[in-house]
């Protein structure tokens, strides 16, 4: 039993990692009160940039760094429209998805069929020798380990630091934050851009570490799963990790089930994660989540104008 389970769980972590990065990036953005629905486009651009830079320089780290920068730059458009111009955030986010999808398709044509060495695996000393857990959690590549750190870093940042408190206040009540002298727009810009960069890194993980090749539309809807996961996680980084690995696990076992020739139709298995999300959404909305440390930022999606009354 264990020798079936351990590989599946290990695969769950690996295939959950790109979704985890995207979810964490979006959580960071949304905590400031900005909603970015451009995740799918950002991930695709990240995947493309990561691949092409790694291909031409030979360094996967440069590829990932470039993906972060491209992700942040692309998000600047969204940030400008939403934060400075007060545009509708849903529309702007959808536009970002379309731009990212189209641009990555167009630019990526010449890379189809190419491969790279990509990111190497390495087992973490000591931790990797823990029975089972070592195989599941600590025998991957560096980006997986960095994602673990990021999960705890964000959790610590939101709940323990002054800057995190300020960020939450800006997402929950920009008017109040503004009145105590915080710069609402600047903070929103900063976290929207960083968040966008992290989302793109999730895409880069797909091409640089997971498949080690470029394929058109290769993220296959993972950006949208991440959007749903943010809500599933109630904006909590630890729950985001749980959700991402759950999706990763479903994906991994579905591949294995297919390989084993199961009679359950594949589309039904593919639906599973979404059904889960809907169930969780129902549970969240039944239970009143008001006033939790982690929860939907109250001003999510609303632009802030100082001189308008509420």
């Amino acid at each position, binding site marked *: 039993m264990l020798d079936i389970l351990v590989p599946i769980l290990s695969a769950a972590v690996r295939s959950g990692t790109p979704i985890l990065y995207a979810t964490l990036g979006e959580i960071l953005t949304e905590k400031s009160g900005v909603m970015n629905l451009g995740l799918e486009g950002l991930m695709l651009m990240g995947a493309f940039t990561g691949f092409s830079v790694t291909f031409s320089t030979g360094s996967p780290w440069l590829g990932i760094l470039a993906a972060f920068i491209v992700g942040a730059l692309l998000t600047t458009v969204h940030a400008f429209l939403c934060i400075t111009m007060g545009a509708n955030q849903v529309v702007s986010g959808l536009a970002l998805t379309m731009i990212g999808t189209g641009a990555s398709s167009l630019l990526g044509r010449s890379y189809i069929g190419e491969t790279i060495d990509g990111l190497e695996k390495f087992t973490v000393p000591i931790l990797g020798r823990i029975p089972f857990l070592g195989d599941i959690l600590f025998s991957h590549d560096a980006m997986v380990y960095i994602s673990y750190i990021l999960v705890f870093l964000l959790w610590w940042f939101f709940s*323990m*630091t*002054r*800057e995190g*408190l*300020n960020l*939450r*206040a800006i997402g*929950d*009540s920009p*008017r*109040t*934050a*503004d*009145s*105590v*002298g*915080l*710069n609402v727009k600047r903070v929103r810009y900063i976290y929207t851009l960083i968040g966008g960069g992290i989302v793109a890194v999730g895409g880069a993980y797909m091409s640089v570490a997971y498949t080690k090749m470029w394929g058109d539309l290769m993220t296959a809807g993972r950006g949208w799963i991440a959007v749903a996961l943010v809500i599933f996680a109630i904006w909590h980084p630890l729950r985001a990790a749980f959700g991402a690995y759950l999706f990763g696990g479903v994906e991994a076992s579905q591949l294995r089930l297919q390989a084993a020739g199961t009679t359950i139709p594949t589309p039904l298995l593919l639906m599973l994660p979404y059904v889960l999300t809907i169930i969780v959404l129902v549970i969240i909305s039944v239970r009143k989540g*008001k*006033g*939790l440390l982690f*929860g939907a930022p*109250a001003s999510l999606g609303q632009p802030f104008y*100082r*001189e*308008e*009354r*509420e």
Partner: protein
Amino acid sequence: MNVRMSSDRPLVKMQSIVKSFSGFKANDSISFELFSGEVHALLGENGAGKTTLMNILSGLYIPDGGNLSVNDIEQDFSSPRDAIHAGIGMVHQHFMLVPSQTVWENMILGLSEVPQFLPKKKIQSRIREISEHYGLSVDPHARIWQLSIGEQQRVAILKMLFRDAGVLILDEPTAVLTPQETVKLFLTVRQMKSEGKGIIFISHKLDEVMDLSDRVTVLRKGKNVGTVKTGEVTKEKLAEMMVGTKVSFSVSKQKLSPGRPLLSAEKMKVINDRGLCAVNDISLEIKENEILGIAGIAGNGQTELCEALVGLRNLKSGSIRLGNKILTKASPKTFISAGIRYIPADRKGTGLIPNMDVNENSILKRYWQVPVSRGITINWKIVFEFAKTIVEKFHVDTPSMLTPVRNLSGGNLQKLMLGRELSDTPAVIVAVHPTWGLDVAATNFVRKVLLKERERGAGILLVSEDLDELLSLSDRLAVIHKGQFMGILNEPSGVSAESIGMMMAGTKLDPENEVCA
């Protein structure tokens, strides 16, 4: 007088400040000076521009014209941050607190001297110290949304005291405080004053202004109509300056004998939002031509009682009837159609829709009725006319009919809502704090309107924190404590404030005077 001006240079100097909102001049060339060691009251009717002027001083609004200097340094604030740096602290009329966060988190929000890694224990004990020192008790761990309005006001005041500001602006800080809390706040303000700080105090309660301030500046329709020393004026004179004409403080109540019973409720039990029993076995009757007052300390079930009586909250048990019509379990619309009107305390939540304009808000209780609508279409021409009559009849001061009502000043929101509720001939009016935050003239106006409705034949249930108001308006007065009536007084004006206070604290009225409703 005891105006101690430590220098002849003002702490704050505002000159010819102009601020318009879509063409409407909220501040029309206002000049204003504050000295250190001075409490300077700012008076004016609702919409006179007090909050606007103070928002400019605290960096929230950028003026269209005029000069501003603090400590003799010319200032050009472009954000609240600039004003905070210049030493200005403000307690806002509509609290600036993050509802989802705790008291301690709100207190330190935006403070740059707090370490990046939050020393929670130290912060909390510091907050406890300060709140004890100033006699404003709060639980640092409570979340803002769990607190009553009064408690939130305390947090807002403490939050400003926590930041060491040289200029303190208090925008209607006493509107929701209990008398004891107000006394403590005034002690604090006097202490601040003796430390050489400058305090700007906004209130509609003239007694407080006379008691606390050294000087008074009166605004009228966005203009400064004069600054006077408090010792050299009377309440009457101040009211006259505010309104422009003489104001009488007394309302005359006609003697009427109550008619037939209108709304009657039997053995009501009502649950509050936290799942507790807020109204416990209350029966009451509101008759034609009478005002039934409800006295009590906030949070003793008044809101839930009123919501149940207008159909907004389900009864756990008991019944409600208007004449012969059974209303138990009926929808709010049935209550409205039956002629029951509601003036809630919570103007921007239950009363009006902040993002809709004046026209739209004026038809909220009749949008489904002919002639406002026919079938699925609304006849806007009729709506515009209807809204215009309300605005004229109730003197609602609004930049335009198409202004979203969130932009109206507090008093004007109240007048608009009152106008809407009283635009036809309601049978029963349930009014909660109807004069809360209103200026002298508007308060008088509202009281007169309620008395006029009473003369016309309406039955009125009046909930208020203001005992004087209750005593001068009510025909009968019920005192509520923990969801139960401690008794109903038939001749409230003949009862002493002390014995009503005892009832509010939970003493039952002795049975001889008691009359079961």
